């Protein structure tokens, strides 16, 4: 398979729109890399530059050490899977998978070998003679994947391949793609705006915003150690809560909406060393780090806030409690056995060991 290197890649359109700015990334052989970010962040554009469907304005793209900038897409040894796959209606599953190879004038016996091998991997062997209309949604999606596999490419590029599927099928196909990555041992680059897909599939994730890479890291690190406010807010669902507060002179306390919350010693040191004494900062706390149980409230007495619950949502295995605090809507993810309900005034303990602190102006992380 393949190593991919993107060096200072930029995409600037003729009208001046700078879609991707100084993108740098080393992708190791067999990695599963995810590009994630909100719509318009440049993730698909970057993927399309790797595919050769968009010209690279500046920078270098190397696949296995070879410069690819001016190599035709068909000669890059890649295969693509997109959101809007279509199966040729009059062709059988076999012919649908073979069609791309026929277009490229691949010998018949070689096509046969590749199609049957892909069908085996995807468990489509018994369906090879069927027409698309006789297939289920999941089977059709697998045929679309099969068309990419028969090319036997060095790199798989996938742009939101599951976006058109319903929620159940999406979860199922997510697992299948993960298995496929393991069985093919291929380098895969996958674009999504769905952070759950990103977290569950990727060995590393590239978070992008406004054409700029925000952070490249493992799913766990992105969640636990976001480098800025954007990444902290983007990764995790429900998203991290952000509260504005002011640190005291020795950074041991933060004042938020009249409540004084104790800052743990390790974070105190980092904040003090960085010169944030008496300064306003943004406190980030994930919904699961806000507790309403009496034990937590009693043991974390130095970091308790009180608020009136506006909405109670039972999701089965957990409950979301929504309340307004310091002019911001806050979400707490609590145990379903909670007795709290909408309209109740409840004490919440914030697990400050898990709190994040961000610079108010630069939005960069000060302490995780």
């Amino acid at each position: 398979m393949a190593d991919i290197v993107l060096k200072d890649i930029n995409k600037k359109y003729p009208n001046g729109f700078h879609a991707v700015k100084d993108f740098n990334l080393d992708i190791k052989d067999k990695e599963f890399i995810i590009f994630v970010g909100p719509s318009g962040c440049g993730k698909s554009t970057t993927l399309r530059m790797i595919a050769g469907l968009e010209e690279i304005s500046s920078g270098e793209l190397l696949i296995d050490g070879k410069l690819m900038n001016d190599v035709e897409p068909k000669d890059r040894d890649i295969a693509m899977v997109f959101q809007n796959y279509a199966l040729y209606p009059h062709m059988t599953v076999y012919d649908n998978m073979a069609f791309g190879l026929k277009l490229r004038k691949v010998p018949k016996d070689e096509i046969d070998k590749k199609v049957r091998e892909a069908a085996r991997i995807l468990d489509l062997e018994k369906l090879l003679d069927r027409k698309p209309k006789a297939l289920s949604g999941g089977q059709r999606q697998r045929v679309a994947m099969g068309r990419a596999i028969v090319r036997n490419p060095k790199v798989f590029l996938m742009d939101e391949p599951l976006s058109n599927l319903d929620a159940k099928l999406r979860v199922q196909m997510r697992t299948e793609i993960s298995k496929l990555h393991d069985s093919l041992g291929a380098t895969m680059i996958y674009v999504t705006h769905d952070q759950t897909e990103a977290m569950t599939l990727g060995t590393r994730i590239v978070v992008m915003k406004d054409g700029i890479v925000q952070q490249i890291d493992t799913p766990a690190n992105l969640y636990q150690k976001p480098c800025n406010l954007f990444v902290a807010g983007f990764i995790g669902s429900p998203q991290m809560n952000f509260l504005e507060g002011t640190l005291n002179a020795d950074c041991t306390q933060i004042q938020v909406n009249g409540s004084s919350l104790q800052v743990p010693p390790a974070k105190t040191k980092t904040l003090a060393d960085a010169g944030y004494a008496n300064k306003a900062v943004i406190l980030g706390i994930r919904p699961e780090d806000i507790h309403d149980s009496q034990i937590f409230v009693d043991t974390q007495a130095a970091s308790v806030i009180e608020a009136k619950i506006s909405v109670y949502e039972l999701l089965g295995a957990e409950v979301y409690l929504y309340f307004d605090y310091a002019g911001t809507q806050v979400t707490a993810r609590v145990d379903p056995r909670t007795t709290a309900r909408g309209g109740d005034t409840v004490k919440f303990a914030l697990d400050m060991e898990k709190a994040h602190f961000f610079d108010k102006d630069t939005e960069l992380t000060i302490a995780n």
Partner: protein
Amino acid sequence: MKGTSFFMDFNSKKEKLLEQLNRATGISFEISDSDLSDEETLNKLKEMVVHFNVIDSKTGLYRLYLTGDLAYSDAISSLHRFHIDENTPRQVFFLESHHDYTKEAVSLLKSMLPESQDVVIELDSKHLVVILNFETAPDEEEVVQNANQFLDMLEAEAFSSFKLSYSDAVDNFKDMPKAYKSAMVAMHIGNTFLHTGRIYSYESLGLGRLLYNVPKSEVEAYLDRHIKLETLSRIDEETLNLLEAFFDNDLSLAETSRKMFIHRNTLIYRLDKFADLTGYDVRKFSDAITVKISLMLYNYMKSK
């Protein structure tokens, strides 16, 4: 330069028509000493093409008809020959490739067509037209799905990158040139006003359709009066993206900050900074309209 380009255009058109005549009649025609102008020569040749019934395929008929080289009255007589029903609902898609498209791209499109009456027309080295026939007029969702499938399949299977435009489906053969022309205009407008879009619907271009027809002098006068070109060029892309998102989310601070994953206060700070620079506060509806139009006209000027 204009003269040279026209001359080349005339020659290539003339050669093409002569070739069609030759194919249909087996006679090799040549044009010697003619008193006719270039335009008259081409018209004469087109008449001969129709007269000799050169239209040798359904695709050829559609091509000549859509591009205005064949009048409705002449085309109608050939419909029966190619089993074309006059009153079938049809959708015309106009496709534009950044580079010259490949034979594979055309083969792939043809393979995707579900009905035998559907056609792919090769207009020139960068433009294709796809005509889809329907039993009942397709709804917008179906059209967009078809459009997306064409583009994604062209990229994934034929490694070819296209843009696509369309207008409303038509109910009869007569209206097809109008649909084709609207789709072509939609491509022009989309390329002018939208950065990275790949599918343009003529009916959804809204303000773009209106502004596209405003003379350049009027555009300059508008910008000069409201937000000068020089000021617009100083706005960073992050702010431009935020403004776009703010307009898309109906001027809602909460919704925009949520969708853009930024803190509400950051959004307010950026909008304040923009107001300081331009004098327009987009949180006010009237200012938002001025800014929206100015930004579109700015893109229009940049594309010129």
